[in-house]
């Protein structure tokens, strides 16, 4: 039976309200960034007024957003690569090897998820400040200070552990008989079979590292090393720039995560689905 006109109209209205709530702010950002007219606080444009790309140019070049984007890219790309490598190896050990204390290791990994970032920020600051013997230097104020603390992430370890557990034992045994050593079993047999999960872990890891705000704020004081979220935080209170330039910078900050998602979208969806239907 066809729904009546009133029902259909109500449904469309509901969709429009939901669309306005979710897409409205994002649309507002895009329109403002593309508008030459400087908006006032509380003002919302529906369409660009005096369309221009000048706000992006000002943000990228004059405000040096490119530098912070580059810093964020370095941290996110290196951090994600290391995080995935460490997570995959840890997950392989937890999922496929039996060793004394495996349960304790799992618990320790899990415990890192239990503490809020704010709670560990001061201890983390102290650790990062600690000076290595012999070379008498610390990683404070370096890329390493922003990368190393995010390399071990419980979420990706547990996600990969579950996927690796699902790989049949016979495949590992067949590879063992075929002459494969531990590394070859990991790299040639188990890892290719958890590719969908790897895609998911890369996307989540990249976004998690890209969005880090407190960590770079705590472990880096040199402005030249700031990442884009830290820089956005500073721009927000900078009265010399217009809101239009600020939102243009915000859009630029979002771009890499969107590109990362689009590139790995297929893997991401497969990963999510595979996780859902696995028994």
């Amino acid at each position, binding site marked *: 039976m066809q729904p009546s006109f009133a029902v259909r109209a109500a449904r469309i209205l509901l969709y429009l309200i939901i669309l306005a709530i979710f897409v409205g702010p994002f649309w507002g950002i895009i329109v403002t960034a593309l508008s030459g007219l400087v908006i006032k606080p509380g003002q919302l444009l529906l369409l660009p007024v005096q369309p221009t790309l000048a706000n992006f140019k000002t943000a990228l070049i004059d405000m040096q957003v490119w530098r912070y984007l580059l810093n964020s890219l370095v941290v996110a790309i290196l951090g994600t690569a290391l995080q995935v490598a460490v997570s995959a190896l840890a997950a392989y050990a937890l999922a496929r090897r039996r060793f004394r204390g495996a349960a304790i290791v799992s618990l320790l990994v899990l415990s890192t998820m239990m503490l809020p970032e704010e709670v560990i920020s001061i201890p983390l600051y102290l650790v990062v400040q600690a000076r290595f013997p012999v070379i008498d230097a610390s990683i404070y104020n370096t890329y390493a200070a922003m990368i190393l603390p995010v390399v071990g992430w419980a979420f990706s370890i547990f996600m990969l552990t579950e996927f690796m557990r699902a790989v*049949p034992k*016979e*495949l590992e*045994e*067949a*590879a*063992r*008989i*075929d*002459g*494969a*050593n531990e590394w*070859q079993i990991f790299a*040639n*047999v188990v890892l*290719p*079979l958890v*590719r969908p999960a790897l895609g998911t872990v890369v996307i989540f890891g990249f976004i998690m590292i890209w969005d880090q705000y407190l960590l770079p704020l705590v472990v880096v004081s040199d402005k030249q090393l700031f990442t884009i979220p830290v820089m956005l935080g500073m721009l927000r209170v900078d009265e010399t720039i217009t809101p239009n330039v600020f939102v243009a910078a915000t859009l630029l900050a979002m771009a890499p995560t969107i590109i990362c998602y689009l590139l790995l979208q297929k893997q991401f969806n497969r990963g999510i689905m595979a996780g859902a239907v696995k028994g």
Partner: protein
Amino acid sequence: MGAVSLKGVSKSFGAVEVIRNVSVEIAEGEFCVLIGPSGSGKSTLLRIIAGLEDVTDGEVRIGGRDVTELAAKERDIAMVFQSYALYPQMTVRENMSFALRLKHRPKDEIRRKTDEVAQMLGLEALLDRLPKELSGGQRQRVAMGRAIVRDPSVFLFDEPLSNLDAKLRTQVRGEIRDLHRRIGTTSVYVTHDQVEAMTMGQKIVVLRDGRVEQVGTPLELYDRPDSVFVAGFIGSPAINMLPAMVGPEAKTLHAARSEIVLPMPDGYRLESGREVLIGIRPEHLETVAAGAAGSIVCAVDAVESTGSDTTVICDSPAGKMLVSSKQRSQARTGDLFALRPDGEKLLIFDKASQARIVRA
């Protein structure tokens, strides 16, 4: 090629002993079947030969070399798994050549060997396919191909046919037999299917509760089983077992809980009153006129016909009995008839020890 020798092999998982002092000699080029019910330890024994399980005690030798402490990859064996264990992300060619690639063999040698084996198994057209694009029988052949390419000393098969349908199972059974004839590599084959064991094995090792119950050729096991267990396990339809007692002057056997009296077969020297079990293969029973001496009166319970063979399941005063013959039966449920066992082919077991009593 290599002979396989197990000496006093034991294996425990914690407090549970799954293999108990097993010693088996498998000659070079022999096709040996390990058979037993679930939990008998046959797969564990195969995994011990493969090096996938350590032994708790004992020694494993392959080709005269002590491999007890060696890892699986150092034993020069190849294994075909029940689930085939093909690498899902690799094509048929990559699956078959994986071991050679790990050994860093020259590329043209890898290609030549893979092509040769693919041709031998009729897999040429499938070389670029992924395992998920193959049928069960084709996957089975790829798993065998992967084993053959390596040219190992010993092939190990872990119930490789159990995931196939009945028709395909018969076909692949023949293919494995042909392959063994052509290549002649020592093979150890685990199954719980006694038809597979009887039709494929040159030697059969019957396992029970982690122990070797009997070792022999298929017909030795069928004709001269050492125990009630082996007699019952080998043969389909299963052997009839009648509890009985040796009669006065040891000239008769009296079936328990019935009036059935069978003449004592020649060559047995049994003391009167001894409790025994009489084993009668279903094909060693013939239908005779009612009241004939040494006959058992039965009532038909069911008739099972496969077309070529007919098995009649009947109720006798001594319990259920199976009769099989090549002739078709017109019998109907409830029909009465008399059966007489072939006295020469009766098997007599001691009731207490369950061991077969040997004719003098």
